[in-house]
């Protein structure tokens, strides 16, 4: 490809959690300023802004969200575009920013993701999230988002013998990682018994199998690799940025136990980056529900189809084990402000590749990292592979 190579030169995020005192504008400003300061952009002009948020219209009544962000960040008159792909909005925004730099159109691009979810009652937030699925034929019939993943879980249990304990172990691991992450929504460890005994949301998923409703924002600064090398001695190169789609409704899929969008996007990403799953040292996957992480690690290719549950239970995805999955705590532990997640994943992987992960969360010798962001019940998947650029 004749496209330019692209690198991440700065990252920043807010803490994820319930931010009663911070509205949407405050969240994006906090993340944006942290990323720009991390990138040391004094005197460097930003050329364009891409923002990912899933449901600002329903959650804060605001569309035209990137116009708001560019205005509030004092970045007028640069072009500012919103990207939306449900829970993959952040990842899709990152991909769009990457394409803008790779194509040569822009040099310095800021990509942000944000979601303000707690200004509405939880029931309304759940309805907003339901829009990630087929609103007409899934949500309208009574299928909430957790119900869709419960249907996936039930089928995975049926086809591969995955157990509730295996799914619970994903939550346990992610909470253990999140406990060390100063930016995470949850800072306490939990046990398998805690997960199994929690309030049932949609059988077999309990409250602790489900990622929370959180507020938060994250941002990264992109530059072409050559320029990045002059700017910082620790650029993180994006080796691959790939995306794929699948049917909107779960009932239209050929199989409930694999995500074709993940398989296609991941395969193409490995081809573009010229690496294999075994080369990945750290990976942030989309664990909106515990079962989602199990599908992800199988579909990306870290474990054989059907063996993801056992691998999780056996500790093969823990920090510094066979493959460190969701060192940030994932969506489950770190929180899931929907539009922010895909960008936060890039923030976490950047910290890991730079050796800057806080509080003993560091994956030793991390050189190649990956992010995996999914929209809805698998209708969109965006993956990125990054490498420590020296």
């Amino acid at each position: 490809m004749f496209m330019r190579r692209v690198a991440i030169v700065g990252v920043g995020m807010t803490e994820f959690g319930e931010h009663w005192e911070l509205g949407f504008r405050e969240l994006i400003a906090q993340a944006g300023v942290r990323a720009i300061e991390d990138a040391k952009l004094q005197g460097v002009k930003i050329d364009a802004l891409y923002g990912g948020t899933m449901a600002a219209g329903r959650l804060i009544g605001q569309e035209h969200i990137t116009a708001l962000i560019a205005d509030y960040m004092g970045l007028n008159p640069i072009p500012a575009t919103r990207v939306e792909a449900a829970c993959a909005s952040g990842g899709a925004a990152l991909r769009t920013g990457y394409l803008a730099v790779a194509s040569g159109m822009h040099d310095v691009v800021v990509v942000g993701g944000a979601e303000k979810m707690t200004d509405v009652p939880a029931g309304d937030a759940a309805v907003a999230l339901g829009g990630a699925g087929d609103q007409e034929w899934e949500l309208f019939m009574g299928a909430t988002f957790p119900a869709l993943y419960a249907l996936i879980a039930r089928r995975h249990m049926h086809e591969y013998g995955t157990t509730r304990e295996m799914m619970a172990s994903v939550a346990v691991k992610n909470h253990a990682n999140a406990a060390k992450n100063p930016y995470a929504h949850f800072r306490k460890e939990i046990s398998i018994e805690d997960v199994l005994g929690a309030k049932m949301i949609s059988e077999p998923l309990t409250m602790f199998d489900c990622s929370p409703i959180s507020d938060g924002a994250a941002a990264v600064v992109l530059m072409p690799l050559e320029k990045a090398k002059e700017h910082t001695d620790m650029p993180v190169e994006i080796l691959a940025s790939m995306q794929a789609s699948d049917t909107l409704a779960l009932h239209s899929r050929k199989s409930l136990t694999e995500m074709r969008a993940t398989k296609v996007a991941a395969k193409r990403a490995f081809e573009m980056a010229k690496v294999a799953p075994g080369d990945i040292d750290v990976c942030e996957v989309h664990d909106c529900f515990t079962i989602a992480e199990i599908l992800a690690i199988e579909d990306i290719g870290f474990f054989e189809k059907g063996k993801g549950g056992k691998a999780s239970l056996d500790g093969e995805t823990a920090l510094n084990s066979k493959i460190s999955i969701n060192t940030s705590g994932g969506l489950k532990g770190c929180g899931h402000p929907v539009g922010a997640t895909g960008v936060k994943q890039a923030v976490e992987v950047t910290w890991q590749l730079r050796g800057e992960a806080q509080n003993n969360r560091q994956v030793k010798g991390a050189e190649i990292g990956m992010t995996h962001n999914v929209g809805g019940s698998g209708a969109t998947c965006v993956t990125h592979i990054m490498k420590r650029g020296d």
Partner: protein
Amino acid sequence: MTEGHGLALTWRKIPERYNLIGSHCDNCGENFFPIRHICPNCRRKGRMKNSRFSGKGEVYSYTMVYSPPTGFELEAPYVMAIIQLEEGAKVTAQLVDGDYSRVKIGAPVYMVFRKIQEEGKEGLIHYGFKFKLG
């Protein structure tokens, strides 16, 4: 009540919701639900026509929903399932009237006519399909 349910939309959905009318592609022979105008297999070579499905099928997956969305509070907990119709297409619907312990993947089901949602005390009642074991 899920937002966005204008009466024109509900009226358009009646054939699908009341009578399980989906699509059949005369080119590749596959059945789809709900109605599609473009065959995902054949695209422009597809020849899609409306097809009424019998309502018979089996449970493909299921869950018991304890945390209902707005509009379903009175029914919770209720069973949601993906049903594989005998014609091949799959649909998402509630399972009613049954003993949850008898719900299994592969259990035969048939379609029944029920209220799906109501728009409060003064708005429209939305009717449509649910399924029952048997």
